[in-house]
């Protein structure tokens, strides 16, 4: 028996995660993402390689577009009609992400949409929500179960089992907890196959504490000197994490400088976090009994008119990377003062202002031919990432000790290095197939065997000290269960007599 894995996306690349695994005759699609770098046919996985009716179920790990972006297309356009599973937070947040992206695609870039708003709604209606560690019996044979993955709110690792064949698809995960999400959590499962992400296949990240310390120091010194701090972030995830960090610090140090959230960000995003407390870290869950940690004490909503008010403040503004919108507007006003600070958390796409600021300190930025921005403010770069590092991947693989590992969601050369390590250090077979390749992973199969009474009796009498050795004959007949019998019984069933062949040899003592 074997598990057959078809890598439809995220093979030797980051983007459009999609893996179809055939396990015990059942086809499961893990994730159904899109590639953000393309706007043509390459944006979606090549669904022509499979027939949508063969798929037993689709499981989505989290709400990022590279894991869910192609789902409405697959269900509404390709016509998949089976069950779709995702966690509660993913189900709540996914339609927002999908609709947001669709709008940007159609309204801003004027491109043709692949699916409509109605498609999204219709698709989401088919989704069956699951909870962490809840075992779902998809059909008679197939069981799936979600495990906590950290990464983002509602992210899950998916365990699937058919009969004795077991596999785990990790999706994106984080092995170190942050301020608002816990670390990935899994049981010891004797797996045949582990499919893991490998975004940071070779990076070993240092302690996050030093990064937090630097960040807090930079912000504190800036506001203490009367400056303003701009933190451009996306609405979900990093904003909450940094805000918890600052809110705690403010509380501890008795700082009275206001922290602002630009309007759109607060209400919706924080509302979801408040509702989904069960999916956050232990610390948040603990303090929730006293107060909701997402009811930030020092945070107040920001209005456009407040941009030029005097006095220090900290502002979280969307979108991240200063790619436009409100964060750009604030940046224009605040960048020229050397008292102010721009703290950029995380990765910035090339071409955005965020990227320019991170890749060396520019003194002026040409926004367009009429607008020049003098940049005299300080820049602080934060390297927080919700992905696990190579140490984390190795730890997980070691803890689970599966028989095979497949790497996805990473860059080819780094994946090669990691494969090397997994094979040499842990002695586990590892592969990193490219897109549209199929990998066959052999699995062990165990059979139920009945034992005859005589055999059992023989076993108990033939005990020899600590060693428990018993001899018997395995009989497998077509249409019958396998059976283990003693020698005598076997002779009886086949109606044969015992023949003993004995021979004597002679060896010359002179033979060398």
């Amino acid at each position: 028996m074997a598990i057959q894995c078809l890598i439809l996306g995220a093979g030797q690349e980051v983007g459009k995660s999609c893996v179809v695994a055939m396990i015990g005759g059942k086809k499961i699609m893990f994730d159904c993402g899109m590639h953000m770098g393309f706007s043509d046919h390459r944006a979606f996985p090549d669904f022509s390689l499979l027939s949508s009716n063969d798929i037993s179920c689709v499981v989505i790990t989290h709400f990022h577009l590279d894991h869910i972006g192609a789902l409405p297309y697959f269900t509404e356009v390709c016509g998949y009609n089976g069950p779709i599973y995702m966690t509660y937070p993913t189900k709540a947040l996914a339609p927002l992400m999908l609709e947001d992206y669709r709008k940007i695609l159609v309204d801003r870039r004027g491109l043709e949409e692949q699916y409509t708003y109605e498609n999204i709604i219709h698709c989401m209606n088919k989704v069956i929500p699951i909870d962490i560690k809840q075992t779902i019996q998809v059909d008679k044979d197939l069981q799936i179960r979600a495990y906590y993955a950290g990464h983002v709110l509602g992210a899950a690792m998916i365990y699937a089992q058919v009969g004795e064949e077991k596999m785990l698809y990790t999706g994106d995960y984080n092995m170190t907890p942050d301020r608002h999400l816990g670390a990935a959590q899994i049981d010891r499962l004797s797996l045949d196959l582990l499919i893991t992400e490998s975004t940071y296949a070779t990076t070993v990240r240092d302690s996050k504490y030093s990064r937090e310390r630097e960040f807090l120091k930079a912000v504190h010194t800036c506001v203490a000197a009367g400056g303003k701090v701009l933190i451009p972030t996306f609405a979900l995830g990093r904003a909450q994490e940094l805000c918890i960090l600052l809110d705690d610090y403010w509380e501890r140090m008795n700082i009275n400088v206001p922290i602002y959230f630009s309007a759109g960000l607060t209400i919706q995003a924080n509302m979801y976090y408040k509702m989904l407390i069960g999916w956050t870290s232990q610390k948040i869950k603990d303090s929730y009994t006293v107060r909701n940690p997402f009811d930030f004490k020092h945070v107040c909503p920001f209005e456009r008119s407040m941009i030029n008010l005097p006095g220090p403040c900290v502002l979280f503004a969307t979108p991240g990377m200063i790619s436009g919108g409100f964060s750009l507007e604030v940046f224009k006003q605040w960048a020229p003062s050397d008292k102010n600070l721009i703290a950029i958390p995380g990765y910035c796409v090339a071409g955005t202002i965020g990227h320019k600021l991170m890749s060396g300190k520019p003194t002026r930025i040409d926004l367009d031919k009429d607008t020049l921005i003098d940049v005299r403010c300080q820049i602080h770069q934060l390297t927080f990432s919700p992905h696990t590092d190579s140490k984390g991947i190795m730890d997980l693989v070691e803890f689970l000790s599966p028989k095979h590992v497949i790497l996805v969601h990473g860059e080819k050369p780094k994946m090669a290095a990691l494969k090397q390590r997994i094979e040499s250090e842990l002695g586990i077979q590892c592969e990193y197939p490219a897109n549209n390749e199929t990998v066959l992973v052999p699995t062990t199969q165990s059979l139920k065997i009945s034992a005859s009474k005589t055999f059992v009796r023989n076993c108990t009498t033939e005990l020899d000290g600590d060693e428990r050795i018993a001899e018997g004959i395995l009989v497998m007949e077509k249409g019958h269960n396998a059976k283990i019998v003693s020698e005598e019984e076997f002779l009886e069933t086949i109606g044969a007599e015992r023949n003993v062949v004995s021979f004597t040899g002679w060896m010359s003592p002179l033979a060398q």
Partner: protein
Amino acid sequence: MEEEGSLVQPLTTTCNPNPLFQFDLTSLSSAQALLLNPSTSIDTIHSTVDSLLLSLPHLSTNATSLSLALSVLAQSAPLHPSLSQSIVSSVRSLINGQDRTSSAVLSALLSIATSCHNEDGSSILTSILDEDLVLSLASSGVYKIRSRILRLLVFVVGRWKCSGKFLTDEVMVRVFLRFTGDIYPVLRRDAIDGLCEFLTVARDGVDFCVPECCLEHAIGLIGDDDEFVRVAAVRMVGLCGEMLGEKENGVDKIGQMDTIFTQICSMARDMSVKVRIEAFNALGKVKLVSDAVLMQSLSKKILGSKNGGKSIIKLDKASKPCAAGAYIHGIEDEFYVVRKSACRSLGIHAVMSIKFADDSINYLMDLMNDDSESVRLEALDSLFRMTAQGCLNVQEKHMHMFLGLLTDMSSLVRHGARKILQLMKLPKLEIFKSTVNELIANLEKYPEEEEGIFFSLFSLGKNHREFSLNVAKDLAKQIKRTSKGDLTFAKPSMAATLVVCIASPLSENENVPDTPVVLFSYAVPLLGRISRALQGTFDQHFLLTFLLDHSNIKWKSQDLMPEIASKGISEDLMQSVIKFISKSVGDAWSLIKGSNGNDAEKFLRSCMKELEIISLNASQAAITTLDFFSKYIQILQLISKIQCKFDSRNSTTFHIKSHHILLEKLDSALRKIRYSFTGWTKEVECHILELSLLVDVFTFSLARIPSNEHLKNLLSKISHLEAISCLSDFTKEIKRLIEERSSVMVNLHSLLKVFECSGLEFVREMKPIKAELKVVGDDSENPLTFVPGLPAGIRLWITLHNTSSTDRLWLHMSVRGRRPQYVFLDLSNFEGSEEVRKCSSLIPFYKTPKIASFEIRVCIVIECLSEHYEVLKERDGPKYDVTELSVEKLVYFSSVKSR
């Protein structure tokens, strides 16, 4: 008893050794009820137990009934310890019976043994178990029997030392080791717990091969599928590591410890929180680990051979990368309990290896930003231990985070941070200064922690001689620059800086010649606060002597010397302190004159505080003086307020009423000081009189047209002054003005300028005039009775101190909203001398109101005979102004009817 008898009856009949008899459940439950009922008589219990025991052999065919009977016996054993022995001897024969029977017997034995006292419990077991029996039970195929014999063994091993042994150590260990391979996880866990117990109890008595053998098994089990087995296994690895570290066994110890350490490190990434907590606890127990492995546990990256990776490579393949970053994972853990545990063991190792300490300080300092207070405290504790061992090398980058702790919300964290600062060595002057500044910020924000902060500042100054000298010189320059009136040292920051400056000269007598003299004299008025902070380190007397010796204040050493031996603060010492305070108070005058009202007030308030602190330790005699000074400072405070008002009245609206209220207060305060003490020196009396003249001047300038009476009053005071001593400039000036008939108001400023405050000298013979009142048989719960409208009697105990026979004392009684009633106290009715007079008398209160209940305020007042005459409206009351001598007492009355 009858009922008991009837219940026992069926049981006793069942004792009939009839083989056909079936023990029914009803009689068993009655037996159970009887045995568990605390009021059952001893005889009944004995006969019940006896009948149960007798019936046991007959039940051997019926396993269910037998096990039930045994459990009833087991339940009763803890309640009736005297029966244990007989129960045990009866069940002995059953132990080798059927599986169910043996397991029931074993559980009965366990419950009997656990209910006994230490030695009895295990001696009972010793009497019944032997090696063969234990071995045969332990290898039984039945889970229940195995689990119970194991629990019995675990119980016994905990009391191994104090009982006779039925197994040799070796057999015991072997049985446990065998159980660690059991198919049931609970038994594996119990077996490991038993081994741990064995190792702890027989700590020094065991050969080193025992822990080695245990270690081997435990390492095999740390990968167990069951969480609890892993927890127990990790604990045992830690324990074995600890024991092997202590024992001399000739093996390459560091290599062995490294292996153990890395094995435990590999559990730092376990998915179970309990395992992780146990793993970090265990890490702290393993000592003698090589630097290379320790350093590896702080880095997620595999360190190269350059850093001593060699010793890691020597280890077997499986354990090589395990140590990597174990501590990093620990302090980044999601659960605070794990972080706390990691932090603790990190601290333990940091103390033992300097190289490791240098690296781990980064992480410990970073933990100061942890969201859990208990983790922060644990990290502080680790840092403290490191500081105490001298292996803490702070760097500049840590200081921002660390000093932030001094303004932390939690007082425990602030305290912890200060504790570390007391021992810390700071590398740079800038860091030293910013530390001092942060401590001052701490003081300003949380003034209630002054003692602790001063002590930290003191230690800081003591440990950094050069830096504190630098600060001292700066401070001296600053003092020089400021004018005499600008007494900024009332500010907490100045006091704090002074503490830093005097620390090193004080503690080691070093830096003395370099430290500017002026600082010592500035520190003298802070004596009370400083000595409180340094309690236990320096005696207050020593401190004062030292400060006086090095300051430029002149004093006589013999004043202080005889008192050195005496405990507490002697009066002489007090005098010198007060002299300095009075001197400083004199300085406050310059502030008042210079119209620095706010500064003056602040300063006076801090003087007040100082007095309060000193008076905590003062003797009875000194308290009088201190009381005088606190009253005097109150007067100064009022004068300063009035002065402010006078200054501001030109510019803003002039509230004449509030002036009158203040003047009234000042007047009564002066009266109080004049009539509350006796035994003045001339100087003090003059000074007080001059002050009252000053009040008059104020009153004068308020009244647009001064009355003749006022003038007369003024003149009489001046003549009184003339009679005592020669006139001061101030009095002369007033006299001149009155004679010239010019307006005093115009010259208020010039008048104030000539007012001098130097005459205030300490008076040794000063005694307090005071009275004590005690109402007999009355409190708010049990009020005195009265008939409305008729006089009511109050029985009073009165004690008078230092009153002269010429004093006129009155008892002042008032009901709220009514005119007061005065009763003259005839001193001839009192017993005793001038110093203490006592009297008990029944005082009538005439005007009882016609209500159900009321309360009277009673106090003793003295008539101020030298004050200006004023006819009071009360016909039967004092003719002059009065001032209170005693505390006001409340007397409660309730109408007879309402009772």
